[in-house]
């Protein structure tokens, strides 16, 4: 039963990733070769991803160090906030960033008041800025984990040897960074490679067009399926190469075991170091929180006067999001249960599924599905269903990451007992797996719900004109320059995404004490 279900899940994932890729490859038009503007898009895609990942990682080092070295009220809040951009709808983040760095933003107004020219945000700077905003938190968390993994015994030894901060950096911290940073760098590079919404809004024209955006333009503006498919194939190859590199680069950290004592920092007690850390913490908090505060402030004004069409779009998005959650469970649970009962070989297979879905880009998926489905069904009618399915599939790697370890533990601890009592099938799930895996299931469901709620990917390709989702509606309001309504729609989207995440994540924890 489980075997069959997990095979079906695998098959669906394969159809979604490799099937769409085949459809795209068959349709790709190479008669004109790879055009100059294709190369420009490819070059820009790699350039911005490189800049974005390097900046995110370099900035993450002082931030993670400051958080690791200091104890302060709000520290755990800051660490929680570092997880938020992951579930933050990209288009909401962009709205917030534009209200600060945009032509009419806070920074521009301050600059013009002081007599300087307003900074130009559109193009490479804007794209990199948005990517750093979205990925610095992820980089910081990864690096912070590295820092916290340094056993306190090490720091004790270092202190007894009279290490100064510089010595500590050279002998303890740098080796840790050398292990952690390449992985963080490649993960962020991979995420930025398939960037769409950021380039769509912050790009400012042909000089900052990612391959994803070029696919969208070829399809939506010119209906040039041959070119769109050619670009999609390029994007797919790019994603696969980067994913393979990522897979090889993620190294295990090895510091020897410690006794998990809370680390105490005998170094860095000097005033200069303290000042530096506080400055870094203040700067990163401002950088991350101010745009979100602006979304709330700008959105509050007109939220009561939003047209009903926006609320209809919101309802549609919530339903799509719930459907994504359901589909994700149907896909992830069989795989996770099957993997947790078997050897490491199938675990590698699950990792492979994860990589396939991470490197599959929304535009390639969307275009491939359009090509596959169009001859038989109306893609516009399927837009919402496809959005739910694609988001379920793209959330799969994160869901598996959360579920597999939990299920493995359950199997290891209670599997033999359940076997001896002959508790199998649905009863085993209901009585054993569900109660114990609830926490990670809740987290995975919350993540999927939030990602799906804020998705501005495949929906833009064949989202119908009269029944858009909330992110698509928000993009259209921005396009029609209804700035106030767009601001309020952004706030609504922010609240709904966070609420859905909270609801599921919380639901997984209720009665956790019993």
């Amino acid at each position, binding site marked *: 039963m489980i075997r069959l279900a997990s095979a079906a899940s695998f098959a669906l994932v394969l159809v979604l990733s490799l099937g769409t890729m085949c459809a795209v490859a068959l349709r790709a038009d190479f008669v004109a070769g790879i*055009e*100059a*503007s294709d190369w*420009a898009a490819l070059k*820009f895609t790699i350039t911005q991803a490189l800049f974005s990942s390097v900046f995110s990682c370099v900035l993450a080092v002082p931030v993670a160090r400051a958080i690791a070295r200091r104890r302060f009220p709000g520290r755990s809040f800051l660490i929680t906030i570092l997880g938020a951009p992951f579930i933050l709808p990209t288009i909401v983040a962009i709205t917030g960033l534009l209200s600060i760095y945009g*032509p*009419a933003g806070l920074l521009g107004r301050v600059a013009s008041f002081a007599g300087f020219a307003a900074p*130009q945000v*559109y193009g490479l700077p804007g794209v990199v800025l948005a990517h750093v905003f979205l990925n610095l938190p992820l980089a910081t968390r990864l690096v912070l984990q590295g820092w916290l993994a340094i056993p306190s015994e090490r720091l004790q030894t270092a202190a007894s040897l009279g290490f100064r901060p510089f010595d500590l950096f050279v002998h303890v911290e740098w080796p840790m960074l050398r292990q952690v940073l390449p992985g963080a760098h490649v993960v962020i590079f991979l995420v930025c490679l398939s960037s769409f919404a950021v380039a769509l809004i912050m790009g*400012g*024209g*042909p*000089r900052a*067009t990612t391959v994803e955006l070029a696919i969208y*333009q070829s*399809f*939506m*503006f*010119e*209906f040039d399926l041959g070119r769109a498919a050619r670009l999609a194939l390029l994007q797919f190859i790019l994603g696969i190469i980067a994913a393979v590199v990522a897979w090889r680069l993620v190294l295990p950290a090895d510091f020897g075991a410690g006794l998990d004592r809370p680390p105490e920092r005998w170094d860095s007690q000097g005033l200069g170091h303290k000042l530096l850390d506080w400055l870094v913490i203040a700067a990163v908090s401002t950088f991350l929180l101010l745009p979100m505060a602006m979304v709330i402030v700008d959105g509050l004004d007109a939220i009561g006067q939003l047209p009903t069409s926006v609320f209809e779009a919101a309802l549609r998005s919530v339903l799509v999001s719930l459907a994504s959650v359901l589909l994700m469970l149907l896909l992830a649970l069989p795989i996770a249960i099957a993997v947790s009962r078997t050897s490491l070989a199938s675990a590698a297979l699950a990792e492979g599924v994860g990589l396939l879905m991470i490197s599959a880009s929304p535009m390639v998926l969307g275009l491939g599905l*359009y090509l596959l489905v*169009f001859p038989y069904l*109306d*893609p*516009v009618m399927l837009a919402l269903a496809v959005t739910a399915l694609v988001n379920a599939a793209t959330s799969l790697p994160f869901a598996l990451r959360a579920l597999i370890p939990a299920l493995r533990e359950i199997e290891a601890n209670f599997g033999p007992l359940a076997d001896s009592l002959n508790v199998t099938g649905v009863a085993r799930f209901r009585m054993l797996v569900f109660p114990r895996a609830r926490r990670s299931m809740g987290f995975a469901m919350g993540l999927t719900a939030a990602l799906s709620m804020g998705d501005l990917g495949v929906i833009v390709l*064949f989202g119908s*004109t*009269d029944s858009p989702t909330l992110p698509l509606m928000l993009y*259209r309001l*921005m*396009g*029609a*320059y209804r*700035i106030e309504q767009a601001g309020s729609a952004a706030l609504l989207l922010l609240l709904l995404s966070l609420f859905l995440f909270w609801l599921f994540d919380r639901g997984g924890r209720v009665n956790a004490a019993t």
Partner: protein
Amino acid sequence: MKSFFIATVLAAGCTAFASADQPVLTVYTYDSFVTEWGPGPAVEGAFEDACECDLKFVAAGDGAALLARIQIEGERTRADVVLGLDTNLTARAAATQMFAPHGVSADWDLPIGWDDPLFLPYDWGYFAFVYDTRRLASPPDSFGALAQSNTSIVIQDPRSSTPGLGLLLWVRHVHGDEAASVWKELSDNIVTVTAGWSEAYGMFLDEHVDMVLSYTTSPAYHLIAEGDETKKAAAFVEGHYMQVEVAAKLKTTDQPELADRFLEFIASDEFQAVIPTTNWMYPARIPAVGLPAGFDNLVQPSTSRLYSSREAAEIRDVALAEWLEALSK
């Protein structure tokens, strides 16, 4: 909760049933046409009074993206009429074989002769850069002067927007094979390229840029609707490119008679009288009431430029590739 759901479904079913005896005519158009200050509401009211039908405007992006939208939806499209293409797109649109003849004849007041059997003109105008006299005392008077200045502009993407495509052909019409180098020089003046006209014009009004690509008739809006005399179109010595906006019926329409009535309505006084003060363009046929005051002081181009629709289709791909390459740098 369940009963609420059932009630909602029932209610939705009833409304569908109630409006079932009122035929629906679906018209795909661009964003600014359907805004409350655009022509949409007045046109809808006037036509629905006469037709006993439900006229439904669907905003499907800017003019040029409209054509792609129809192609994406293919024969299943729910559009009965498309309103918002222009002569630079009609050859490409005709090639899709998706449009049917309009069968309307009228005494047009267009600056060019009209004999297109598929596409019906509804208004026209000249592209121009609009500026604010308080912020820009002496605007550039040619593409060369604009490129030399540090005047910031926002333009629209020629792939999605008809003004964007118009500018592409304007530069090409003036500068011929030198167009690519003109774009290279212009690229540092361009703050951003928007997908549609509305966003670009909004950025100009919020003073994010010095000039915006729009029409010689745009200042009439500020003058008539707002009593604001500070918005002007920059007259270019090399002349201005013209736009004739058109509508057409889809072959696949399930409301062919209604669609025909709507196309006839477009040529009527009622529709044409609404155009100048809502779409802020010259009407394709001057209605009995004439043009509103304020339209007589607008920039009159020294030279009026336009490619035939066949030429425009031939030039477009080359011009677009030049534009993409120049602005990719």
